[in-house]
């Protein structure tokens, strides 16, 4: 039997241990050790499950499949030629370039349109300002997929067949097979090649497929509404004292905007517009819903054919993360270069 003093010493020891566990320098270490163990166990559990499942379903792992023949068709490929006998790697590269093509164009169009609408929103003309406001509210409160489906339906169901295509300008044709318009001939400056009707479609010039046209249209109009709000907020954020001071110096409206207001507004505008560019690129993945072969759509086909879901998803994630980091990097550089000197942290 333990003596009284023994027991007292024991209790004291326990409470000392408890106190040291509560010590502000010990506690975080214990918490983090527990967290690390938890994350480690979960990771081990999921990987071992995955290994077991892959083995049972006879699914290979690793990226060897990239060198195999893809044997599926891709609707359109711009910069790279592609046939169904090409490899998965080439198919995925085509998907990436398609994503790049549509997002780059949508970013350019939405910036121009968004800037214009943002300025219109601040117009002293009541009608113009209201129109811009209605545009922004309507576009922002409807999901992009719905808008894409809508534009796709407008193009494929309501535009005429190529034979009686709408022609709003010389050499421009709008039909349910897509949009055709004149294209500069490479190597011969100032020479335009006009599309001509041949069979059930157009040849010559440039042709946008209905899928691409709907995606580009929807994505540009959608992103423009968000950009417009950012531009408006940026201009409103410039204090009225700045305008007054500039006008009192004798500058005219154009000069005030060009040299005083816009440079200050841009500092507010650039960071949120950057994230809009990122969103635009990520949103281009909705292409899969209307059948434009972007990266996600082709990776998805690859997953369905090979069963290698983990690798397929990994490719998607790596590509998008790289794009995100690249855009963020460029914009951070811009921000550093043009940020207010005193405001730098």
């Amino acid at each position, binding site marked *: 039997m333990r003596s009284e003093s023994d027991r007292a010493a024991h209790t004291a020891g326990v409470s000392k241990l408890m106190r040291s566990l509560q010590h502000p320098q010990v506690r975080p270490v214990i918490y*983090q050790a527990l967290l690390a163990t938890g994350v480690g166990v979960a990771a081990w559990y999921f990987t071992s499950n995955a290994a077991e*499942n892959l083995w049972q379903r006879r699914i290979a792992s690793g990226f060897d499949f990239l060198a195999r023949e893809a044997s599926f068709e891709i609707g359109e490929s711009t910069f790279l030629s592609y046939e169904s006998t090409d490899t998965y790697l080439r198919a995925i590269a085509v998907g990436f370039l398609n994503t790049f093509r549509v997002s780059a164009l949508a970013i350019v169009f939405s910036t121009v349109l968004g800037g214009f609408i943002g300025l219109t929103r601040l117009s002293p003309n009541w009608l113009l300002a209201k129109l811009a406001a209605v545009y922004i509210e309507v576009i922002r*409160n*409807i*999901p992009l997929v719905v808008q894409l*489906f809508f534009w796709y339906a407008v193009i494929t169901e309501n535009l005429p067949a190529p034979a009686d295509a709408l022609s709003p300008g010389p050499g421009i044709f709008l039909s349910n097979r897509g949009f055709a318009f004149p294209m500069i001939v490479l190597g011969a400056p100032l020479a335009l090649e006009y599309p001509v009707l041949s069979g059930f479609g157009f040849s010559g010039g440039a042709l946008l497929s209905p899928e691409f046209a709907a995606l580009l249209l929807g994505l540009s109009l959608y992103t423009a509404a968000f950009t417009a709000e950012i531009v408006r907020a940026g201009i409103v954020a410039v204090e009225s004292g700045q305008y007054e001071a500039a006008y009192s110096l004798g500058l005219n409206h154009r000069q005030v905007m060009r040299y005083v207001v816009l440079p200050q507004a841009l500092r507010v505008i650039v960071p949120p517009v950057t994230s809009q560019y990122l969103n635009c690129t990520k949103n281009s993945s*909705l292409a899969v819903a209307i059948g434009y072969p972007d990266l996600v759509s082709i990776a998805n086909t690859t*997953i369905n054919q090979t069963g290698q879901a983990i690798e397929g998803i990994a490719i998607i*994630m790596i590509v*998008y993360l790289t794009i995100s980091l690249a855009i963020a990097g460029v914009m951070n550089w811009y921000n550093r270069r043009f940020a207010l000197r005193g405001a730098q942290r």
Partner: protein
Amino acid sequence: MSHAVDEATTHVKSLLQWLRGRLFFSWSSSIATLIILYLAWNMVPPLINWALVRAVWSPQNARLCREAIGHGACWAFVADKYRFILFGTFPADQHWRPALAIAILMVLYLLSALRNMRRWRLAYFWLAGLAAIGVLMWGGLLGLSYVENERWGGLTLTLLLATFGLGFAFPLAILLALGRRSAMPLVRWLSIAYIELIRGVPLISVLFMASVMLPLFLPGGVSIDKLLRAQLAMIFFAAAYLAEVVRGGLQAIPREQEEAAQALGLSYWQRTSFVILPQALRIAIPPLVNTFIGFFKDTSLVVVIGLFDFLTTIKVSLTEPAWTGFGVEAYLFAALGYFVFCYPLSRYSQIIERETAHRQTDIHFQGELR
């Protein structure tokens, strides 16, 4: 001159003044106004004609719709399929159950928007409401027949995905936001890695991940159904975005608040839940509501993994031979459906934002007086 005529002339005068001041104050402005009026004159009447006057409403005869193509809209499509669009393939004689569930959700949304309801009381209402919805939708209790969740669909499913998604994402988001500001490096790194990884990739890839990759990571024999997988993906996705909004709110709280609470001897969790979070979340209400809107719109992406939500039911209805080729009408209706929910929410967030701005200037002003 009589008094009435006098009043009328002042009205006309002020109207003319307004027109001159807001529409015709300069040459360029006058031209812009005239162009807009001309375009409206040319476009609005045919549009009204198409959408309302010459539209086909009655679903009895799909042939009428075919005849109206080109000059009248075909709303008969909606009239024919509205039950499928609202409730999916829920058993027809039980449609009152999802209808009641939608009604309960509406009441909960409205209660949450009331000012004096931003209290703990609200949480109890939500718990009770969600429990009732669970019973209504699944059944198997109180004499209700059991309905498996593969049969849930339509607007009901969209609202459930959005509500449960946000409900579960929000606590996770608060933990992530706190984690990102934690003094413990491992907690901070894990939170940052999670938030940035999710925010760097499109939602579609997260949905694909849940639908094709998640089953691989579960032990053999265990399977999670498609709806739950999509719901999990949406929760994990929303949490990353909400976490950044919450972090914005946390950053707006001055350090002194934390220090004062520490000086009072409060523990970390006491400081966080009684001092910091109530203030941070109140500041973050407008951006939170904007994120809610974005998330509600994002639920429409489940169309790519084949869940029968509001948009998918509309898209599927279009594949019926009677209704093919009416995509424009169908998607205009879908757009209206989403707009009806998103627009009031966005107005609400704008109002709150203005109120908060006023309150802050008031506080500032009082501070100066003292």
